[in-house]
């Protein structure tokens, strides 16, 4: 459990944030300049705030009223920086053991060998940081932070400086991080797909203020928060369960909304496994009648629950789909011509191939290999970081 209450002035920027989270992975979400990085810098002890009360698992680390400010080297709050910040004069091994060395032997938790294996960096140990790729650097930086035995791990856009291939390489490690180490994580990001895939709790920030806090699926389904989130990547996050695999056509069937969702084959996972699905609003079409002669495999009956505020020619709709929420993005023209209003029954059409093909390569490789850990499938066709699928941790 982390409780944060901060009031800090940086030049003309005013940061007033308050949130609490007992989530495993809490996303600090917002656009650039919304104060996310300042907030984690305060939690990590890099900035001394004007007014703050911060506690971690009941232990107060900052209380300006009591003039209490635990310095960063005694906080045991790990920090993975956007640009890695590995020590250039040390080898990877020395970098990893840096924090380990400063940790009292009795307080050490993870063994270096375990962390090295978890992050797949065994072959890099004798190299120097300058010879590593961006993704390798970030994995080493994560390992280095974990080996200092933190009570909380802060990650400030750890993927922002990486290209898509590197992001795809590192995301699976991030997904396993909490389950393997049980260190709560605060993950700063402005990427909807990353947050949808990793975070259990979301804290949405805008202009130095907290706009909303809650479970990721709830926050993602709120139309009123769309202006604060990413307009392009907006979409609902749902929990689904694998029903069966269709070997003939290379597809997987998920149970969702009391119906079925066909997606490209999710290899390496047995039926019954829970997966998280990110369905982008712009990938959803609506029909007022049951569609016929349609190529799309997924047609889910739903009810329009809410019409959002139009922005430009676009309107977002929240659909109630047997208790679960799907977002759909239509033109205002379509909304009017279909006569859609709240309570109207509709059919949501979702193309199967809308779920990304790119990572299917990764899954088939995994199916052949010995690695049984969950390798996720992307949930969008874009070449952006669009990962929408993730395995359920406990079964990974």
């Amino acid at each position, binding site marked *: 459990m982390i409780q944060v209450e901060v009031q800090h002035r940086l030049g003309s920027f005013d940061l007033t944030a308050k949130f609490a989270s007992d989530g495993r992975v809490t996303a600090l979400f917002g656009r650039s300049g919304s104060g996310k990085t300042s907030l984690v810098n305060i939690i990590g002890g890099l900035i001394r705030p004007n007014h703050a009360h911060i506690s971690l698992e009941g232990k107060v680390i900052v209380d300006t009223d009591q003039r209490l400010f635990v*310095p960063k*080297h005694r*906080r045991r709050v790990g*920090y993975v920086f956007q640009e890695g910040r590995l*020590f250039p004069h040390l080898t990877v091994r020395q970098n990893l053991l840096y924090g380990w060395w400063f940790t009292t032997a009795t307080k050490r938790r993870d063994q270096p060998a375990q962390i090295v294996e978890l992050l797949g960096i065994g072959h890099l140990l004798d190299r120097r940081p*300058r*010879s590593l790729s961006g993704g390798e650097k970030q994995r080493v930086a994560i390992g280095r932070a974990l080996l200092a035995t933190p009570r909380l791990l802060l990650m400030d856009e750890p993927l922002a400086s990486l290209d898509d291939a590197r992001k795809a390489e590192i995301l699976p490690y991030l997904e396993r991080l909490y389950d393997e180490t049980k260190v709560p994580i605060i993950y700063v990001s402005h990427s909807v797909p990353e947050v949808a895939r990793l975070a259990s709790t979301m804290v949405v920030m805008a202009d130095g203020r907290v706009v909303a806090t809650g479970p990721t699926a709830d926050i993602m389904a709120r139309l009123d928060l769309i202006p604060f989130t990413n307009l392009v990547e907006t979409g609902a996050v749902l929990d689904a369960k694998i029903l069966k695999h269709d070997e003939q056509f290379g597809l997987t069937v998920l149970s969702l909304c009391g119906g079925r969702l066909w997606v490209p084959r999710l290899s390496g996972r047995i039926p019954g496994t829970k997966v998280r699905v990110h369905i982008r609003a712009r990938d959803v079409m609506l029909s007022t009648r049951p569609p016929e002669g349609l190529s799309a495999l997924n047609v889910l009956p739903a009810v329009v629950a809410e019409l959002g505020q139009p922005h430009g020619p676009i309107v977002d709709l929240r659909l109630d789909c047997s208790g679960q929420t799907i977002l759909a993005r239509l033109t205002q023209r379509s909304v009017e011509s279909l006569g859609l209003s709240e309570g109207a029954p509709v059919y949501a059409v979702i193309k199967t191939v809308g779920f990304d093909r790119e990572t299917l390569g990764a899954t088939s490789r995994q199916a052949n290999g010995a690695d049984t850990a969950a390798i996720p499938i992307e949930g969008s066709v874009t070449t952006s970081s669009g990962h929408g699928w993730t395995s359920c941790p406990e079964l990974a």
Partner: protein
Amino acid sequence: MFTLTPEEQAAVELSLRVSLWATVTSLPAGLFVAMLLSRGKFWGKSVLNGIVFLPLVLPPVVTGYVLLLLFGRRGPLGALLANNFGIVFAFRWTGAALACAVMGFPLLVRAMQLSIDSVDRGLEDAAGTLGANPVWVFLTVTLPLILPGIIAGMILSFARAMGEFGATITFVSNIPGETQTLPSAIYTFTQVPGGDIAAFRLTVIAIAVSMFALLISEAIGYVVGRRMGVER
């Protein structure tokens, strides 16, 4: 032609000894001042900056005379040190070392200061979040990262000391075997008839020592640079 007379040999040895002492003893103070000027925010910073870099712009003779006034037997600091600690600078080789240290100090500080300025503070923050207290951060991160600057500063200071003439001769005179350094000896030989050969020999040595110092600094810079590579 290339055998040195005892007098010449004494001058070379003295110069090396004076330069080494000047460089090594001024290093801790130089590092402290460089840190202060690079990182410190305090009242009077520009005054400190001025005092440190003054020997670079003053005529060396003036610096030597100021040292004589301050550290001479009757000078306020000279008397204090002589009476309480038995340290005497006037007309001793230690005085030559002091003069060289003062003259080389701006070069030493400047090189280290530039190097400290270029250290990524983010790396120090990272070390802090990993549990290193400020002293450890300095020893394990800052110091290794500024090592090239420290070495460059020391080489510059050493080379300056090897060539120092004006302040030394003004402060501690030109006593063979005690304060007659290489430049003083060369000067003396050029003033006496038939001293040309000796002056020439010492000149060759001076060039060789300076060249050697430069090569060493290049080599160290190369090794350190290769170890760390160019991050970022």
